[in-house]
């Protein structure tokens, strides 16, 4: 069994697992840190961005590079449509991938890169919410980028990255970066997905069984249990033990794995999501009461649902409930609609509302009462008439490189009464804001990441007792942001065999298959006669026709057309007692047996009249005679009477 690591971002994972000749891709995450190196896309030309000065690395005078790089406050940006870091395609040919398992909608953004134009012919499995909401994320991304077409694509800069200052210099593998896919690739790719339910057993070519188990992180999020008849592999991706809107995490299913692959832990190991939510509520109330607007960059699904619920209650309490919330995204309406029809994937509290029947989320009510207003874009019909300040705006994209958020920063950035609040943990907010500096608006950082932190992860491992634990190498060292916090790692304990892995590596996983499984059918089973060798242990021979179909082995009764086949083979065991043997010979009328000891428990018995010889040893007997079958049969019976059989 081997594990290939194709993504350098543990929170946008992509692995390949090979086992029993099946190639499984675990998640299909798209690394988007690359975005921070690009200038924001604005669908209203921004003078400020247009007037940024060109940058040329020291000692470089390449005319083709002219104008590709821009500079703002010591940060370098590429003036080109943004590019993304797809999974590494050098280690494995995607055409060979049999199955792709998607854990949650945040881990499938690279799917079109993997399945389209690569010869991929396998199956993709994801839960229903993962498919629906994943579609929203993919579509939103494509719309955001396509609505701001750039006239030129820059490429020369990739040759000079090493000559640029940090952090631009540290950009990871820029030559492998790709432009975003188009909508037809998105549709083609998503049409390959087969929807599955939690605890649904999916057969993979008879060799493996995969089961998604609820992971508690977001709507439809799953961990995967991959098992053969004797081995169990658990793949844990985005998981949460906190109580929010999704169905809680299913621990039981993850127990006693031979191999436990753990990834996608929290990106904010130091802060606690509950206190961050508290800070967020205070910041919003204060800003609104001070007459300022709040801008919350977000994804169109996920924690944002909890924020609507929580903030609306908080705003009521703080007397600013007359300030509206705006949710602006090309998929805002669909996201809100879907959240209310996926009851079966929600926490019990939310599920019970559906039985009334009430909508599981209060945002349907908020929309009805005009507390929450949603629009596809800020230039959509009705937005300008509905728009009122002060207000709270939720919009994308959290990288601040495209989407309506770019316009809102332009609009509100120069007023210190306004505040931008970072709640999504995917991007460093300082880097995200770099192309906009210097801004007057306030900046609050309340990243809410509900996925497992290190304490929770270590406790989980202790409870689940895997034999081998496989984690990204970064999880074995304290976070770069807090090198002194040595407790923020996955502990290496004697109970677990810990294997770290890095991007681009192929790891051998210590699972040695010794046993397989087969099925015995009625006729064969009825012929089994167990012989008790000692208390608690019996043996029986089994002979049958082997039928192998789709990796499933079945043993059936042998038809009579196979002549001479001994269908009831038995084995002898033990040793022959010489005296007993001689006595039996005598009883059968053989009286001329001459016993000769050859030493070392080897005895030869000559039957002179019969012209035969029997050599007896501890573990074998050799009967040598001429072609006289009657004699041989007689001798055979005598030998067998002296031995035990099964």
């Amino acid at each position, binding site marked *: 069994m081997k594990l290939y690591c194709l993504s350098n971002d543990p929170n946008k994972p992509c692995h390949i697992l090979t086992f029993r000749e099946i190639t499984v891709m675990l998640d299909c995450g798209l690394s988007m840190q690359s975005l921070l190196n690009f200038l924001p896309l604005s669908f209203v030309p921004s003078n400020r961005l247009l007037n940024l000065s060109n940058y040329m690395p020291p000692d470089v005078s390449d005319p083709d590079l002219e104008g590709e790089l821009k500079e703002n406050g010591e940060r370098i940006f590429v003036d080109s449509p943004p590019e993304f870091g797809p999974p590494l395609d050098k280690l494995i040919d995607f055409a060979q991938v049999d199955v792709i398992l998607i854990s949650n909608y945040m881990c499938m953004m690279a799917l079109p890169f993997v399945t389209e134009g690569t010869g991929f012919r396998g199956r993709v499995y994801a839960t229903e919410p993962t498919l629906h909401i994943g579609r929203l994320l993919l579509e939103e991304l494509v719309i955001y980028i396509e609505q701001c077409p750039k006239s030129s694509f820059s490429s020369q800069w990739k040759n000079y990255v090493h000559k640029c200052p940090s952090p631009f210099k540290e950009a990871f593998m820029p030559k492998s970066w790709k432009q975003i896919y188009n909508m037809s690739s998105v549709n083609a790719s998503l049409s390959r997905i087969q929807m599955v*339910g939690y*605890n*649904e*057993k999916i057969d993979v070519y008879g060799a493996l069984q995969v089961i998604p188990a609820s992971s508690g992180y977001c709507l439809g999020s799953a961990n995967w249990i991959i098992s053969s008849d004797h081995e169990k592999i658990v793949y844990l991706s985005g998981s949460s033990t906190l109580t929010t809107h999704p169905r809680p995490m299913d621990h039981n299913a993850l127990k006693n794995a031979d191999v436990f692959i753990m990834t996608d832990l929290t990106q904010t190991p130091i802060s606690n999501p509950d206190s961050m939510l508290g800070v967020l509520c205070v910041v919003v109330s204060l800003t609104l009461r001070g007459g300022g607007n709040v801008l919350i960059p977000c994804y169109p699904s996920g924690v944002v649902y909890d924020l609507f619920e929580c903030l609306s209650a908080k705003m009521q309490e703080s007397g600013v409930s007359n300030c509206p919330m705006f949710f602006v995204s090309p998929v805002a*309406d669909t996201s809100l*609609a879907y959240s*209310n*029809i*996926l*009851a*079966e994937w929600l926490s019990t509290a939310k*599920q019970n509302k*559906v*039985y009334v*029947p009430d909508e*599981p989320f209060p945002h349907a009510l908020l929309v009805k009462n005009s507390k929450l207003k949603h629009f596809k874009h800020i230039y959509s019909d009705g937005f300008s008439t509905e728009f009122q300040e002060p207000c709270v705006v939720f919009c994308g994209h959290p990288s601040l490189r495209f989407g309506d958020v770019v316009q809102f920063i332009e609009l509100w950035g120069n007023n210190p009464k306004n505040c931008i609040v970072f709640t999504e943990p995917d991007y460093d907010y300082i880097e995200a804001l770099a192309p906009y500096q210097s801004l007057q608006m306030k900046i609050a950082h309340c990243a809410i990441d509900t996925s497992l932190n290190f304490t929770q992860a270590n406790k989980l491992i202790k409870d689940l007792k895997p034999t081998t634990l496989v984690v990204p190498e970064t999880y074995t060292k304290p976070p770069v942001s807090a090198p002194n916090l040595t407790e923020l790692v996955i502990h290496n304990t004697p109970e677990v065999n810990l294997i770290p892995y890095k991007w681009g590596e192929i790891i051998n996983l210590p699972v040695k*298959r010794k*046993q397989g*499984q087969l*099925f*015995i*059918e*009625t006729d064969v089973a009825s012929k089994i006669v167990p012989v008790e060798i*000692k208390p*608690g*242990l*019996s*043996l*029986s*021979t*089994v*002979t*049958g*026709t082997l*039928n*192998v179909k789709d990796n499933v082995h079945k*043993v059936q009764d*042998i*038809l009579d057309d*196979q*002549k*001479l*086949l*001994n269908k009831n083979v038995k*084995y*002898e*065991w*033990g*040793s022959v007692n010489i005296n007993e043997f001689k006595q039996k010979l005598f009883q059968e009328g053989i009286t001329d047996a001459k016993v000769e000891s050859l030493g070392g428990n080897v005895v030869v018995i000559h039957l002179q009249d019969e012209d035969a010889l029997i050599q007896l040893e501890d*573990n*074998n007997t*050799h009967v*040598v*005679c001429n*072609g006289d*079958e009657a004699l041989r049969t007689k001798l*055979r019976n005598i*030998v*067998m009477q002296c*031995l035990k059989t099964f």
Partner: protein
Amino acid sequence: MPELKVTPLGAGQDVGRSCILLSIGGKNIMLDCGMHMGYNDERRFPDFTYVTPDGPLTSYIDCVIISHFHLDHCGALPYMSEMVGYNGPIYMTHPTKAIAPILLEDMRKVSVEKKGEQNFFTSQMIKDCMKKVVAVTLHQSVMVDNELEIKAYYAGHVLGAAMFWIRVGSQSVVYTGDYNMTPDRHLGAAWIDKCRPDLLISEATYATTIRDSKRCREKDFLKKVHECIDRGGKVLIPVFALGRAQELCILLETYWERMNLKAPIYFALGLTEKANNYYKMFITWTNQKIRKTFVQRNMFDFKHIKPFDRQFIDNPGPMVVFATPGMLHAGLSLQIFKKWAPNENNMIIMPGFCVQGTVGHKILNGAKKVEFENRQIVEVKMSVEYMSFSAHADAKGIMQLIQYCEPRNVMLVHGEAEKIAFLKEKIQQEFKIDCFNPANGETNIISTPVKIPIDVSLPLLKAEAKKFNALPPDPKRRRILHGVLVMKDSNVCLMDVDDACKEAGINRHVIRFTSTVSINDNGPSVSTAHKLHTFLTDKLPQWGVTFSEGEISVESVLVKVEGDDDESQKTVYVSWTNQDEDLGSYILGLINVMGQ
């Protein structure tokens, strides 16, 4: 031979009161727990004394499975769990869990408050009963206990309707409940994979019908409604609040829009608004088209259809009214019927099946007068139309389902006796499998093949594969697996004999025989050996006869030739182990004959 035991307490050669007991691998399962709409006495509930003469059922039943919310499938549930007594788990889908208690409460009100029945279950009992319900999602594998596994499949009959696959060990059964194999205006078609159950228990409501195309039936329905409205008549459509009602509403709504009709369409208040809400929230259970468009336009927000008020019964002029219940056995639909029946301009459209004993059943059978409990006699002059809109599988659909899941046996329930008997014939002929049709209280025993999973050592499998692959390809050649089953405590593993002996801590004793035969053949002994090889290869076509270093071998049998090249007499040694006794002595015999 392991077996399955099935006893219908209801729905055996009958429609209504579905309740089937299944024994599988030592587990007892109750499939549905319905009531019969045609009776007001104790016959309306299944006879649970069959399970145990008295006392609670908990220790006799491992779980109860409810296929969908129709009362003929879940109407006796509170009675069974709260009055007879059952505390075990009850499984149903989420929509069924949401909707069933509402229908139960509605039915309870009609029975107790309107008909004054005694000894009926209470509202609290419905609530207590629902607390025992475990909601399941489609395709989720649910372990009821360590051995009993169930899984729901989409049945397409009403919102949330499911077929259930049930497994214990290697035995499995599929119970369909009611299902529909053709997608309709709001639901998709039933679907199941090739799960090859030992037994498929299928409903057979429309066992002998091959329904004409859906489109024709719809056209016919709209034409009849339109004609009645044109002549100023009133149309009564008795429906269940959930299910067919929503489909017919979508149908009329679009027709009214297209034809620009003005006559009012009413939907009897009560369940309906709520009902449409359920459809909105469980939209993932509807068909693809509705699911795709629900963000833009919710199909269940109706423009032309307005809530009904009792006072409208006597309003003049044409109107269309949907009212519950569907079989015209009680409630508002019956009340409206009594008022409108004597007028020949009016029309009643029965869009579904009606069980025996109901008013619906009577008028469908042409009754011109209906007598009620209080001696009231109602003349039926209105036209009575039957439109089979009930979403059940027809004969073709049932055959299709059998084809999909490839059962070893079929059992037909939930259908009239003669119709079931007819279909049974057809299934046996077409699929060459056994088909059962037990009556209520009758037990059928179905034996099932054993398929025991055991561990097998990989070296044993690999050795077999290597040996098989080494032989020249022959499509007729069978792969033979031979090994020793080691049964140690609860572990069972098949391995080769040497490993088995090691595992058992014993020494194997090998018996070998060597017999000598003299034959006359001139030339070197190698050429004699070659001749023997050719001879044996010819005589033993199914065996791999090999020749190397002057020795011929077949399995453990070795044949060697000795003798001087210039002497014609050669000695042939034939040697084999006791395990190849038959083969060895056969080869010896062949060579003996050759030597003579």
